[in-house]
């Protein structure tokens, strides 16, 4: 009986503590807009590489103040040139100090046809105000699934993302 009472009290204290921690959490949200282009190649391409599609990337990232160095970022992708397409990416971002961060995640194009792959990047921030920073992000993408992919083909991309980020 005494053991059950002790267990109940401990559980109640843990729940209260957890809820108090949850209520104290604040979210750190950022928004970004970037232009993306670079080089791409694949096993089906006769030459070594070519210029990749110019893409606009608009997204947001979310971190909790308890773990400010860890964030989840999602973004919409709009291919604008020379062919149009839309998609999105989702990634885990780890901040290395105030100016650098690395990220890894998935990337998918949804229209006009599907293309799915993985992505990794390294971001450098150049603060230009209290909430605004210019960003420069070299990134590597690899697409290995989807209806837009010719048979037995893997597409790789080495791109540079240039844009602006706001702390909201």
């Amino acid at each position, binding site marked *: 009986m005494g053991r059950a009472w002790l267990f109940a009290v401990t559980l109640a204290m843990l729940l209260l503590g957890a809820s108090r921690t949850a209520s104290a959490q604040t979210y750190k949200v950022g928004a970004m807009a970037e232009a993306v282009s670079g080089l791409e190649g694949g096993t*089906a391409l006769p030459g070594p590489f070519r210029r990749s599609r110019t893409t606009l990337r608009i997204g947001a990232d979310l971190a909790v103040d308890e773990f400010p160095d860890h964030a989840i970022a999602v973004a919409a992708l709009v291919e604008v040139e020379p062919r149009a397409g839309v998609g999105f990416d989702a990634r885990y971002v780890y901040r290395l100090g105030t100016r650098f961060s690395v990220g890894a995640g998935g990337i998918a194009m949804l229209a006009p046809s599907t293309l799915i792959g993985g992505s990794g990047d390294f971001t450098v921030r150049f603060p230009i105000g209290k909430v605004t920073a210019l960003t420069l992000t070299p990134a590597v993408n690899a697409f290995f699934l989807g209806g837009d992919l010719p048979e037995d083909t893997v597409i790789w991309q080495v791109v540079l993302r240039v844009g602006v980020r706001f702390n909201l």
Partner: protein
Amino acid sequence: MFRTFVVGLGLSAVGLYLACSAPGECLRHSDCDKGLVCDNGACIVQTSPEAGATDAAVAVDTGIAVTPDASRADTGADAGAAADAGADAEVDAGADAGEEVPSGP
């Protein structure tokens, strides 16, 4: 020194990027126009068994127009002028018949 290296690296990257022409070949199906697919870096007409059967059927239908060749072979052995006349007549007749078929029933 480091800044010079970074600037040089950046300029090299920009030069490499600009040296790449706009995409001419295909890497994805969506690089190709509608009705074409990407195959080994080139856009080709999408072929399927159904499309092949349709093409074959069309070829058989148009093969009826080959009839003048057969008559030409027959009449060509007799006289060239007669063969031309016969062929013309048959082509005309065929054309007439072809026009009548769709509007008949």
